[in-house]
Structures are given as C-alpha cells and as structure tokens.
C-alpha cells in the first residue's frame, strides 16, 4: 500500500495543475455543502429551542375560583408534555399589563373592575414535533373551567414547514455540489489516464495486473478527496471565525442564537463523503477505461 501511496504522490507531482484544479473544485464543492450543513444545523438548533420552549396561556372561565386551583393545576401538570405550570391571577395579569404599558396605562386606572381572567402559564415540551403539543393543548381545552388556550402554533407550524422546505432545497443543492465534485474527479482521472495511455500499455506488456495499474489512481482519488475535503472545511472555519462573533452580537438580542461550528460528527461525515467521492470518481472512470 505504501508503494502505491508513493506512486500516487509521484503522479500528483507530475500532473500538478490537473490535480490542483481537482482538489480546489472538490474544496469549493465541500465548502458549499458544509456551509449548508452549518446553516441548517444552526437554524435547526434555533427552531428546536422554539419548539422545546412552547409556552401557552390557559385562560379560565369567570366561574373559576381559587379554591379549585390545586385540583386544576394538578390536572394540567399530569398531562403529557407539560413541564411547568404557573398560576397567574387576574390581579397579577393586570399588574403585568400596567407594567408593560408603562407611561400610557392611565386608562387602566379608570376600570371599575378587572376584566382580565385568571390564567395558567404553562410550558409544553415537544418531543416529536407539534402533534404532541397540539394533543396536550386539546386535552387542556377539554378540562372544566378552561375558557381557551392561546398557543402560537399556527405561525410556528408555518415557519417549521418553510424550514423543512428550505432544508430539502439545501439537501438537493448539497447533492448537486457533491455531484460536481464527483464528475470533476472522474474527468480528471480520464484526462490523466489518457495522458498516460502509453505508460499503461508498457506496464501491461511487462506483466502489470489491472490492480497494479489502478491502485495509484485510486490512491490519487482518495488523496484528492481527502485534501479537497479538509481544504473546504478549513475555508469554512476561517470564514466562520471571521463572521460568527459579529452575527452573535448583532442578532443575539433579537432571539436566542446558538452559533457553533460544525460538530465533529458532521465534519467527519463531510470529510468521509469527500474522500469517498474522490475514490468513487476514479473507480467509475477506470471501470469504463480498463474494460
């Protein structure tokens, strides 16, 4: 294997330009793929955060009295997915409202009686998407003394649907970029093979097996894929270092933003795919050429 590795390095040196172009093309393709993965990993974390911190307000009927609060609170707590229940009395709700409308809350003082209902502020954890949340909400609605449940489900579902569509488009783009890397590798192998046709013929004349002829090409493909993959990830990491702190600072105040670089698993996966593509491009080309 070591001798094939040495041969492959010698081949790369003797066809520097072609091999460099291939590695740069693979690097750019991997850069685009990693960029998509990084973007969707980050967006996915944000969405998960929203999903997991699903808050809902359970408004109670006017007939509700604080005597029945423990019973109702425990009924809600027992429901699947409900992780936190906090009672908000109508007085607390009015105080919050006044606080939120600080400066223009004088009209609230003119109210003869508090129009706000008692409520429970609950947190529902979604384990497997919105269906479990929706089921919990339906169960709460069916409880006695519950007037209505306000939950920002509608817009979140739309955002999630949009995200899924976006993610699908991203995956398609990833596949396209990987295909580009694959075709470039395959084409380079063909060009190099044709430029070395007479050399291959001589090898055959002295008794070289197909394996002996192919192995240096395979190793070259693996090196191209591996180096291209590392290069692509490295470029993305440098860009990430340059941009991430700025993004966190400017957008972190708008919503909770957990910006992290690709996980080791994702990087390993991308690098593995890149290396595999380098080899696979060689494999398919040589299969055709050495029929």
């Amino acid at each position, binding site marked *: 294997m070591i*001798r094939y590795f040495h041969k492959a390095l010698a081949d790369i040196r*003797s066809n520097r330009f072609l091999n460099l172009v291939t590695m740069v093309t693979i690097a750019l393709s991997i850069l685009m793929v990693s960029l998509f993965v990084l973007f969707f990993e980050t967006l996915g974390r944000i969405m998960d955060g929203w999903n997991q911190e699903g808050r809902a307000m359970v408004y109670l009927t006017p007939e509700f009295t604080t005597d029945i609060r423990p019973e109702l609170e425990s009924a809600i707590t027992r429901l699947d997915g409900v992780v936190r229940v906090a009672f908000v009395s109508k007085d607390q709700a009015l105080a919050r409202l006044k606080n939120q409308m600080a400066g223009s809350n004088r009209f609230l003082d003119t109210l003869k009686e508090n129009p706000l209902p008692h409520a429970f502020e609950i947190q529902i954890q979604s384990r497997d998407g919105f269906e479990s949340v929706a089921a919990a909400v339906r169960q709460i609605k069916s409880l006695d003394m519950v007037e209505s449940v306000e939950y920002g489900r509608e817009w979140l579902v739309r955002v999630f649907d949009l995200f899924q569509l976006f993610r699908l488009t991203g995956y398609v783009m990833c596949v396209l970029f990987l295909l580009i890397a694959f075709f470039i590798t395959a084409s380079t192998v063909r060009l190099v093979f044709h430029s070395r046709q007479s*050399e291959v013929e*001589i*090898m*055959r*004349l*002295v*008794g*070289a*097996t197909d394996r*002996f002829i192919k192995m240096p090409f395979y190793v070259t493909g693996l090196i191209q894929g591996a180096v291209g993959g590392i290069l692509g990830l490295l470029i993305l990491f440098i860009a990430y270092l340059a941009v991430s702190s700025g993004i966190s600072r400017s957008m972190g105040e708008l919503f909770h933003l957990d910006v992290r670089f690709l996980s080791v698993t994702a990087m390993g996966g991308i690098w593995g795919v890149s290396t595999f593509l380098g080899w696979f491009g060689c494999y398919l080309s040589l299969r055709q050429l050495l029929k």
Partner: protein
Amino acid sequence: MNLDTGKNAIIRLFNVTKQYGGKPALQNVSLDIEPGEFVFISGPSGAGKSTLLKVLYLAETVSDGQILIDGMNLARISPARLPFLRRRFGMVFQDFKLIPTLTVFDNVALALDVAGKKPSFIKKKVMHVLRITGMETKVHELPPTLSGGEQQRVAVARAVAGDPDIILADEPTGSLDQASARRVLEILLAYHKKGGTILVASHHLQQLQTVVTGRSIVLEKGRLVSATRLEPYAT
C-alpha cells in the same frame, strides 16, 4: 511446416493464422522451439515477423490455430492470467518502450515491481542487470536524455531483470548504430548462454547470425518458408 516435434518444446505453434480485416499476416505457421534455443525470424517488411511475436505474448489473438507456451494453451488464458503469462517473457522493442517520466532504475524496476518483489530485492537485482548492460552510471537519468543505444540497453536490462524463460525481441537493433547493436546482441547472447530462450525478429539477419548458433526462420507473406541451422561465422 513443422520443423521439430520436440516434446519438450517451450513454444509450440499449430497452424497459426492471423488475419487483419481479411488480409492474412500469418498463414498456417507451425513451429516448435526448444528451451534455450536462439531463433532468428527474418523476412521482408510485412512478412509477419512482428505479428508472430505479438501472438506469442497475446498482444494479438490468433484467427485460427493454437499456441502452447510451456504446455499452456494461450486460447484458454483468461484476461486475469495474462499478466502472469507476460512475466514469463522479456520483451525488447525497436522503439524501446521505456516510460519517459521514470528514471532508468525505475524503468528496469518496473518488471520486478509488477511481480510484487520486495524493494530490497528489486534494488539489488536492478543494479545487477544495469551493471551487466553497462548502464549502472545512468540509474538516475530519464530515458529521453539517453542515446538510442543506451535506451535499448535499458530496455534489455528490463527484459532480463525478471529472469524470464523467453526473450522476445522485435527489431532490437533496428534503430541502432553498429556498435550499439553489437552491445545489445552481446547482452542477449549472455542471457542465452545462461539458458534463456531467445526469439529475435530482424531485418539485419547477417549482423545477428555471425555471433551465435541458432535457428533461422524465414517468413514471407505470413508463411514460414524456410528454417535452417546457423553456425557463427569466424569473427
């Protein structure tokens, strides 16, 4: 024409015919070659000399007839076994067929490398054959920087490096000056004296047959027209 019917023949041809697009390059050639024989194949251009060598190392397949190499029927050799057959031959061509991007050492080493020999053995053996061929001072040179005679000596070194049973030489001295041609022949003769079977296809029969005992085979229009024993002239 069947010259000898030696049971120990290392090469046996039975009514071998080779056609290119309907035109015969070889017609019903039958021939036995004993191990350790030195065989000259001569004849005018287009007589089928090169074709005869090509069908032996399976660069071409025969249209009809059969060839046995050391009892092995070439028609039954699978593509996967072909490299192993070729390792039994050492081949020398008029155009040398050296890889221009590899050094003299690496070109010769290739014959052993393909056979999976160990690097230490390859180094020792390559230096040995380069010494025999007088090319030991050029080990790091690339073929294009060498003269024709030197390139052919490298090609012969490669041919003998793997200690093949048979050497097939197609016009090995065709593009060389007299001194270089003589040097190449001397190397082939030295290998022959060690027991190697050698087939040389050449126009320059006189030059070759002055130095060795062997057999001369003449081809004309693809047919084997004569076979005679040769004795070296006094030189």
